[in-house]
């Protein structure tokens, strides 16, 4: 199966002559390179990572690399986008739909924490390593942030209380980002799901107030 959201780490082609169509080979190379750039930058840091390091890890030739990407940065940006697409898809599935908004919000939070916990390397790449790439980081950050605030907005319905704070949506996304970032730095990403109850409260309270936020916090504590 090949779609935009397949697992980057498991896609490998057999070596040597395999008779596979060129398009498939390129696709595999592209994804191996993106998986490699995640792994290598997390290990060595963006600055000291070379294209050679990425090639070595991916088992792809230099010429193929430059057919697919302009440079190291382009490869980082592509990997970043692919991972975020996958995260967005997961969160969407949990959050957008029917049911009372606070409950869907809690489920969206749960899906987010689980996604990050499942792959600490990707988590560090997305939130920590990408911030070191220089000027491009500002535009990456801007678009990723807008992506999640607008998804949050999209999921609002008539049951969503109009929060008094105009930037409540940003507060929510900020709460999530800040918490995950912190756990990455402390090397505790795998334990993120344990934080769901407190995060649920902190996320919801600006929107729904004390009582309703505590209720979702209790549900989160009881189900996790």
């Amino acid at each position, binding site marked *: 199966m090949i779609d935009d959201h397949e697992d980057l780490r498991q896609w490998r082609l057999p070596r040597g002559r395999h008779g596979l169509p060129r398009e498939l080979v390129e696709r595999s190379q592209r994804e191996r390179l993106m998986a490699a750039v995640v792994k290598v930058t997390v290990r060595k840091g963006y600055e000291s990572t070379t294209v050679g390091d990425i090639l070595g890890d991916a088992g792809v030739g230099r010429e193929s690399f430059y057919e697919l990407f302009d440079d190291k940065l382009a490869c980082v940006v592509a990997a970043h986008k692919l991972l975020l697409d996958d995260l967005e898809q997961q969160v969407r599935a949990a959050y957008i739909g029917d049911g009372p908004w606070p409950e869907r919000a809690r489920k969206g939070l749960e899906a987010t924490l689980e996604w990050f916990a499942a792959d600490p390397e990707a988590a560090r790449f997305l939130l920590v390593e990408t911030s070191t790439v220089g000027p491009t*980081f500002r535009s990456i950050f801007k678009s990723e942030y807008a992506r999640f605030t607008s998804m949050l907005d999209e999921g609002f319905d008539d049951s969503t209380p109009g929060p008094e704070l105009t930037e409540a949506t940003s507060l929510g996304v*900020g709460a999530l980002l*800040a*918490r995950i970032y912190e756990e990455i730095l402390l090397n505790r990403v795998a334990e993120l799901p344990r934080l769901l109850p407190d995060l649920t409260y902190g996320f919801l309270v600006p929107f729904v107030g004390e009582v309703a936020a505590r209720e979702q916090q209790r549900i989160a504590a009881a189900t996790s």
Partner: protein
Amino acid sequence: MQKLRSSERSGTVLRPTLPPDVAGRTQRQRIIDAIIESCAVKTYAATTITDIVSRARISRTTFYKHFDDKRSCFDAALDHCLSELQEIAGASHDASDAPADAARKAATAVLETLAARPGLAQLLTGDAIALQPKVIERYRRATVPALEALWRSGGKRPQAHTDPRLAFGQAQVLILNQIAIGKVDRLPDLRGEIVYLTVSPYGGHEEALKQARIARETQAGGAVKR
């Protein structure tokens, strides 16, 4: 003949001769201001020593008299910014203010400073974190205990409603986004949210909302809008 640098020229009314230690400090300060400005324009990663020395109008030799390299210059700039903000936050309120009022005033003062000096905001939320993610820990050591102290009564630690460390991270994300979308001059638009985040950990949701309202109605400089 060697050309004299500005700080070495003989004094005039406008440019009095400074004792060497003062001139030295001024140069150092100019270098620090220069790296902050350059990072704001092109980020730390793209800033070169040449950028710094030309902005500061000093020679490379002078630069290296004060700093070993770009990184040590940046670290000095960071220390400088942090202590300046701490001072501003501390001076914004006094002992007669209730904890939540004091927190609101401190948050508003810091936000206004960042809006007036975008380079500083960019350095603290962008480059500093990219260079050493753990710098956030330093920010927190500078802010969280001060916040806690406002609510401390009779030596007893206040009970937290939400994690103050997390609130701090949220504030930082909001400010970073404001910078990323190119609206750093509109940072004061966020004062309701930032005050909410500052007050809510120890003051709770309701008190934080109340303070956010006051902050929104208060114009820069502290006058309440009529």
